[in-house]
């Protein structure tokens, strides 16, 4: 049996979608100069909110919408604390993750061991049966295609539109942006909400499609990998896509190796996505010029307009 085939690449795309969604949302947040370390918390709240909505209504579409709402709702706490109460972003982000993990297992108490309604594939079976191209290009559900479209939309918006310019200006120098008359706090607030919604959809994709069921702490570090991905991507949307598919590939590959009982300890395979993330982070950050040039200058700094 081959190690790499069309099915593996198809799995890879599915496995990367949650972290891709979370990463692209966080990328926008960081571009606006805010470091939200609560991605893991927003993802898991999105996962349970989407799961509950999907199970109760039977509609996967509504599940994803509620996933976005759940993630965004949690991010409101972060936005209010960091933007209006001027709290430390690192500490607030950590608190958000801890709170998200707690509140999600509270919400999901009676939802363990249930299978959600199946999210339909977008294309008809005949197209999915085409060798190679079928499973890779046509074998997914709508969310996968939307996630790629979202990357394109974010890349375009940030690079080519006035809105993108404003977001970047706020992230590079909030004082200058403020002096120009832009509402720094309002813009950042909306970016944080966008990031929360993206992370929520990513979480819902985990609980509705990838696993699909609900278990406590099921994101298992996906949010942190998404955060690492933003650094890996040097804050460039298309590179985030590349990075996400790379990580997804490792996750898919290690699962396949486990299934084939290759003579590598299971623990090492389990840890491989995290280890690879660390190695990639080291490689990226050791390149002094690149990492420093692209990071938003005001990232993580508290903005307080004195006048």
């Amino acid at each position, binding site marked *: 049996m081959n190690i790499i085939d069309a099915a593996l690449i198809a799995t890879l795309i599915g496995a990367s979608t949650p972290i891709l969604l979370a990463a692209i949302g966080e990328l926008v947040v960081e571009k606006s100069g805010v470091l939200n370390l609560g991605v893991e918390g927003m993802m898991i709240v999105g996962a349970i909110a989407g799961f509950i909505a999907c199970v109760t209504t039977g509609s996967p579409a509504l599940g994803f919408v509620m996933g976005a709402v759940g993630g965004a709702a949690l991010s409101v706490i972060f936005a209010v*604390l960091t933007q209006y109460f*001027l709290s430390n972003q690192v*500490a607030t982000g*950590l608190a958000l993750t*801890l*709170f998200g993990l707690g509140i999600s297992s509270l919400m999901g108490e009676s939802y363990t061991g249930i299978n959600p309604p199946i999210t339909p594939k977008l294309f008809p079976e005949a197209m999915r049966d085409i060798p190679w191209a079928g499973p890779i290009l046509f074998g997914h559900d709508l969310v996968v295609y939307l996630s790629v479209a979202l990357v394109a939309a974010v890349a375009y918006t940030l690079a080519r539109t006035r809105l993108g310019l404003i977001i970047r200006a706020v992230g590079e120098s909030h004082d200058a942006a403020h002096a120009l008359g832009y509402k720094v706090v309002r813009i950042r607030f909306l970016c944080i909400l966008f990031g929360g919604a993206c992370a929520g959809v990513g979480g819902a994709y985990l609980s509705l499609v990838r696993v699909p069921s609900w278990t406590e702490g099921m994101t298992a570090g996906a949010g*942190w990998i998404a955060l690492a991905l933003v650094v890996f991507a040097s804050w460039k949307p298309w590179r985030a896509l590349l990075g996400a598919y790379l990580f997804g590939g490792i996750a898919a590959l290690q699962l396949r190796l486990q299934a084939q009982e290759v003579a590598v300890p299971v*623990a090492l395979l389990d840890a491989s996505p995290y280890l690879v993330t660390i190695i990639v982070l*080291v490689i990226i950050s*050791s390149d002094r010029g690149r990492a420093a040039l692209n990071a938003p200058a005001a990232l993580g700094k508290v903005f307080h307009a004195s006048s």
Partner: protein
Amino acid sequence: MLRLEKRPAPSQAWGIGAPILAVVLTMIAGGLMFAILSLPDAGLAAAREAGEIGFGEYVFGHIPVMIARGAEAIRTIFWDPLFHERFGPFLRGQLLVKAGPLILIAIGLSLGFRAGIWNIGAEGQYIIGAICGAGFGLAFYPSESILIFPGMIVAGAIGGWLWSMIPAILKIGFRTNEILVSLLLVYVAESILALAATGFLKNPEGRGFPGSRNLARHPGTDNPELIAGTGIHMGVVAALIAVIAAYVVLNRHMFGYQVKLTGQAPRAARFHGVDPNKLVIACMGISGALAGLAGLFEVSGPAGQISIDFNVGYGFTAIIVAFLGRLHPVGILLAGLLMALTYVGGELAQTRMSLPASAIQAFQGMLLFFLLALDLFTNYRIRGRRREVAA
């Protein structure tokens, strides 16, 4: 309109008042959360079903029910563990058992947090410390020599220290973000723990069940209660020593001064001759070693053995403890006791009110939110907006 005005110096009163107010607000919000969890009330729903009460009565009837329910939850969590006639004596002992590791880890973390070095992977260092310490003890099994436990303590501290050196060295050598690396290493440590419990540390006489030999029930490797009924074991003693040592270091020692200076003015610290790399190594190393110690004391005492899930998230809760204690040793001591109270009370509420275990985690997160919000008043003053004369 209200306006924020930066204080020339942080307010002392708010520095102490904010954590207390945060606890009070968390009790109110938490009570509300627990009350909402019990909705809709079964008794009222049955009455409504039977047509005994109208819709309005059904809705408003919930208000007293919710107040009672919330108050009961708060009393169960904060009061009963200390003062309940029947459970009190046992639960008071549990308080120190849980506060010990929290304080020990939080003291280490607070040094780094003060200097802007974010080790948030204490959970991983805790696990690796426990594995190394337990591994040392089990290597000499079935010897009951009194030298084994001291050796385990050293091995535990070294294990946690080594695990924390990975993010530290990567930060110094490659400027890699220590937040992400230390956190990702928690998941790697969990994989190693699974491997240890099912593989290299598995009890050969365990009939195939995962988990190591029981350390707590074997003389030589055990970490017993020092004074019966109080819950004080070596880890609690170590935590108290850490509090005192941290206090002395921060107030009377050059290293403590450098830590504080780097946190408040990194540039000034550089001119003063503080080597930022050495500071990273020292802060990460101390927090790692203390977390490793906490893990070793836990696995040889209260937990008893290496099992797949012997760790219960002390490494993460300690982050809340460090902030709630204002990164100050005495504050951390008090915050650790308070957080231990929520653990003990949470378990009590779980059995007596069938409150889910995870509710306590959400409750602890909420506490940190309120604290972070109230911190605003430590650094800023709220002023009504003056009408300014049009220029």
